[in-house]
């Protein structure tokens, strides 16, 4: 295969498929194999989730899955409280609907409009054993609480020599593009927080995942920043197990097996990447292995590196600006650990290094076409 790529570099002007010298028959065969592998992988993932739950499932979207997880956590443990701005009536994204009625004002309540207060208050409760689930209305407004999250929650255990900890804290916050959110309803600030030792950062991609990961986060002994892709609150719908089940933190998931390029993303970006991978397969017969990182700190280096050792190519994609984005961390680590397996430069397809723009959102976004180009490019660039 390596020889193919090297010679293809010399034959400029041909389509990537022609350059790779694959016949139409071969292309069709590979496509069939790929589709088969994908559907097997999908079945396996769902089966795993269901086996972990109680078997019975219900169709849920992302916000109802979050709501279901909160309901289970509140029902399971008296020390779980849910609070934030406008949480009592159900939340501006409906994630907390019905919880106040069911669990009362003491455990599901509104706070004053003050992010540093919300997180500071949560840390205090957690430090004496509670499991507060605090909501920041938009990830764009988490910055007033940056000090409390980074200097306090993240360091609480370390600085006290494990005398105390803020491990009970879970911070839920909607993040990411939503089509018309402009500067302050679209941001993906995960990389600011992945730099803070002591904090875990989790991003789910679908309802079933969101529920399993949120339940793990709430009962995790470390503080967790749980970022919910608001684009998917209503649009992502799937069968979700009704019971209590947990998806472990710190483990990535290979959601589609492939052999030519590894693609890594998280949250809402996975749908974009699946579309780009489909396009690369259909147009060019390129088989992509898609990995959902799920937990950004601590991230699953093993799964990503194993995949890159197999494919030899890596594309990382996130909505946040490229400069200092979490993609840089992945890219650098993979380069350190998989240098001799890499056949092409690692590509980062990210938001631009601008504030998140309103009318230019479509141009700003790392959409499927930009990702498709990167996938093809990384095959084309191969040595």
């Amino acid at each position, binding site marked *: 295969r390596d020889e193919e790529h090297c010679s293809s570099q010399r034959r400029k002007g041909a389509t990537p498929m022609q350059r790779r010298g694959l016949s139409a028959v071969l292309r069709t065969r590979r496509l069939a194999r790929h589709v088969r592998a994908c559907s097997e992988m999908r079945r396996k993932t769902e089966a795993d989730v269901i086996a972990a739950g109680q078997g019975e499932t219900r169709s849920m979207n992302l916000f109802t899955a979050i709501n279901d997880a909160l309901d289970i956590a509140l029902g399971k443990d008296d020390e779980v*409280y849910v609070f934030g701005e406008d949480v009592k009536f159900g939340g501006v994204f409906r994630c907390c609907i019905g919880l106040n009625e069911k669990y009362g004002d003491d455990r599901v309540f509104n706070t004053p409009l*003050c992010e540093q207060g919300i997180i500071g*208050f949560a840390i*205090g409760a957690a430090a004496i054993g509670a499991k507060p689930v605090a909501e920041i209305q938009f990830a764009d407004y988490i910055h007033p609480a940056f000090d409390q999250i980074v200097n*306090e929650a993240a*360091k609480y255990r370390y*600085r006290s*020599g494990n005398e105390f900890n803020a491990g009970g804290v879970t911070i839920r916050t909607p993040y990411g593009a939503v089509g018309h959110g402009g500067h302050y309803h679209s941001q993906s600030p995960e990389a600011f927080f992945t730099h803070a030792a002591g904090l875990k950062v989790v991003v789910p991609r679908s309802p079933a995942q969101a529920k399993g990961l949120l339940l793990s986060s709430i009962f995790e002994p470390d503080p967790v920043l749980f970022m919910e892709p608001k684009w998917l609150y209503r649009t992502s719908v799937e069968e979700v197990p009704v019971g209590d089940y947990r998806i472990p933190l710190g483990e990535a998931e290979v959601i589609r097996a492939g052999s030519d390029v590894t693609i890594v993303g998280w949250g809402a970006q996975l749908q974009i990447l699946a579309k780009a991978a489909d396009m690369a397969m259909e147009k060019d017969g390129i088989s992509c292995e898609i990995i959902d990182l799920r937990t950004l700190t601590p991230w699953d280096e093993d799964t990503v590196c194993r995949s890159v050792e197999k494919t030899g190519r890596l594309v990382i994609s996130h909505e946040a600006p490229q400069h200092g984005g979490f993609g840089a961390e992945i890219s650098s680590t993979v380069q350190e650990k998989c240098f001799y397996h890499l056949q092409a430069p690692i590509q980062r397809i990210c938001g631009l290094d601008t504030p998140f723009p309103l009318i230019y959102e479509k141009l700003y976004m790392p959409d499927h076409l930009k990702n498709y180009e990167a996938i093809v490019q990384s095959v084309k660039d191969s040595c």
Partner: protein
Amino acid sequence: VDAQTPCPVMNVVSRRLRARLVACRRAFSSETLMKLKQSQADSPVNETKAAETEEDSASKLRKSRVYTTELDMKLEKTNIPCFRIIDEEGQVVKSDYKPSLSVEKMIKIYETMSKLTVMDKIFYDAQRQGRISFFMQHMGEQAALIGSAAALDQEDVVYTQYREAGVYMWRGFDIQQMSHQCYGNVHDYGKGRQMPIHYGSRASNVHTVSSPLATQIPHAAGAAYALKLEGKPNVGIAYFGDGAASEGDFHAALNFAATLECPVIFFCRNNGWAISTPVHEQFRGDGILSRAKGYGMYGYRVDGNDMLAVYEATKEAREYAVEQKKPVLLEAMSYRRSHHSSSDDSSTYRPKDELEWWQNNNNPIDRVRMHLEARGAWDSDKEAAMRQSMKKQVVACLNEAERAPKPPIVDLFTDVYKEMPPRLKEQKAALEEHLAKYPEAYNLGKYAKE
């Protein structure tokens, strides 16, 4: 546009508005109202209640507004007095004072205040000699610290800023433990990770100090809320200085505590200075206490150099918070006689005579001592014996801490998370490999073996 000509848009709006008004009137014609009343009478209780609450809520909001036609810009100048029991000579000035403090407890408090003073002097000198890297003293604030600590229950959860060693002392975190922390040795609960004076202990129920100012104030509110939900008869208490009260977290904490009804005491040490910044550059209102009213909470201002007053005020505040499940703000007025820290020379920004005046005329230690002596419970022999034994004790503690090894190297990596993640394990292995190669460059002998 001619002002006399009615604006066409306005016309449309007012026509619509009129139509809506007519519709509303029709909807609430007497006949409809009768029907509504009838249906309410017939309907189940909860529905009637919901309708009533809605009406009540609307009328409540309406009634809460008071209007005026006068524009009256005003600044209410206040000077809230400090509560005191004894004067500068230790004489009881509160005529109806019924002490809730026994003489024995008063002596114990006085001894702890003295111990803090002795420790300050010796630890400060140790810093000057380069034995420990940093230190902060408590001169002038001993009464505020130990007087308040003595009024608390051990189950009350304490959050401090950094100038509160007296509170720790009262709660069993002794000078030996402080020495261990300042040396960051193997016996330090904090495993040598933080700067000196960042004490903390689960056994003493005092949460570990962190340098960022005011972050602990909302923590105390959150902890108090959790205590309330657990049904415990305890309070959270946050200590902080007048400078820290300018931080956003102070505002957050007080507003949260008031609206969420947290049994918490906010204890402000107003000592006149935040490093080099005097209070008139810190705020222009009447100190910190005047802000309590704005948050809808009670509070006291107390003479922070009067241990008896601080004790009684804290005791009452605590009882109120536990019973009412509500916050209290306490402002203890004192004077920071020491430098801000061992890294600060306060003579560069404040007049010497100011310092001397507080030392000679309004000194918390002298005031309790004079009070005790007037009661016949203390004399200069007891004083001399106490000072002598304390000095020996503090020096012995420092020496002991100095001899102990530093914590093992592995503790550089533990407790970041509950479980060490793979990446940290890798970094630990890499460091070990490096140290094996260059052991002489890192003075490895000072660390304890695992």
